[in-house]
């Protein structure tokens, strides 16, 4: 059986020489079990050493190899060539500025992630010798799904709200805020609210749901955002009915 040949069209951009990105096609002989990342690695190793892209683990854990594959945000290490046509378009994740070739500028996402305080805010600081903050399996299951986020930002590339309004805090950051809000050991919800329950936060989301469709770990950020909307609305009415109530 002859080896399958795939035409890999890659959007190239060199900030030192190019004004705009341009497509370049590489013919790649590929093996049955290859993913798109293997084909990109082949280009780098055998055809064009100037190609720049991010990758690390090759097993959908590190979240660094996200690209647009035929218009769909995917981890290139999880996109099998056997599921794709012979002509494959690979471009940097949509909605992010291109730094070089397939590498995007992540600064905006990093700032947003930081803004939602994605870490445990404990009720009280405990010395290490006092032991762990205990949690039951039921308490863990409330938020476990949202801990699976690998910050790959495919959800931002899929989100039309983020495409049109860069101030939107976005799916992954809001899902992680929700993850900590649901954690029985955490009391940081009020501290997160200024960002999370703002216009640029949950209320910018109109539930397109694309973020959850493309999430490689089924985190369902769209569902998380709707849950925060409901909790925030309940807060509003509780405050209205019981002014001055403590939270």
């Amino acid at each position, binding site marked *: 059986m002859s080896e399958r040949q795939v035409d890999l069209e890659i959007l190239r951009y060199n900030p030192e020489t190019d004004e705009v990105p341009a497509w370049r096609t590489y013919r790649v002989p590929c093996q049955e079990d290859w993913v798109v990342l293997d084909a990109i690695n082949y280009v780098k190793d055998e055809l064009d050493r100037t190609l720049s892209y991010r990758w690390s683990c090759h097993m959908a854990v590190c979240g660094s190899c996200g690209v647009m594959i035929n218009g769909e945000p995917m981890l290139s290490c999880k996109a099998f060539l056997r599921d794709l046509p012979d002509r494959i378009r690979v471009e940097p994740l949509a909605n992010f500025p291109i*730094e070089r070739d397939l590498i995007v500028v992540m600064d905006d996402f990093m700032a947003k992630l930081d803004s939602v305080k994605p870490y445990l805010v404990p009720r009280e600081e405990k010395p290490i010798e006092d032991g762990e903050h205990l949690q039951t399996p039921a308490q863990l299951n409330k938020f476990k799904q949202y801990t699976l986020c690998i910050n790959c930002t495919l959800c931002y590339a899929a989100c039309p709200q983020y495409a049109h309004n860069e101030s939107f805090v976005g799916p992954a950051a809001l899902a992680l805020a929700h993850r900590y809000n649901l954690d029985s050991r955490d009391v940081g919800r009020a501290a997160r609210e200024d960002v999370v329950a703002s216009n640029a936060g949950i209320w910018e989301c109109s539930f397109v749901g694309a973020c959850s469709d493309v999430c490689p770990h089924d985190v369902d950020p769209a569902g998380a955002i709707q849950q925060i909307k409901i909790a925030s609305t309940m807060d509003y009415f509780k405050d209205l009915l019981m002014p001055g109530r403590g939270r």
Partner: protein
Amino acid sequence: MSRKPYRRPVSTSRWWLAQPRYIRYMAREVSCVFIGAYTGVVVVGLLRLSEGAAAWGAFLEALQAPASVAFHLLALAFALYHTTTWFNVTPRAMPVQLGEARLPGGVIIGAHYAGWALVSALILFLAGG
């Protein structure tokens, strides 16, 4: 080495044609136009009813015009699409956890359909009874 990040242009008018899921989203959003227009028809009907038997009869006759029938079928299709798409996402927006396990999504969706059937039956009973 200086940085010169490139920002790709985003279409403000045609972005929703890029993906089938965006088209489905826009269909869900545009359903409000048809539901709003149908609400307008109902309000006009109430006004005609308040104006007497002749006005009400003329209104009922106007409803039977082919354009009116076509509009109502279209509005019904969009209303059903709106309802089913929202019902189907309720387990994600309102998950229910009992002990360690989550209530299956089908139960939450089914409860919404059951509620829908109950309210519809009640309205039909009151209107027809």
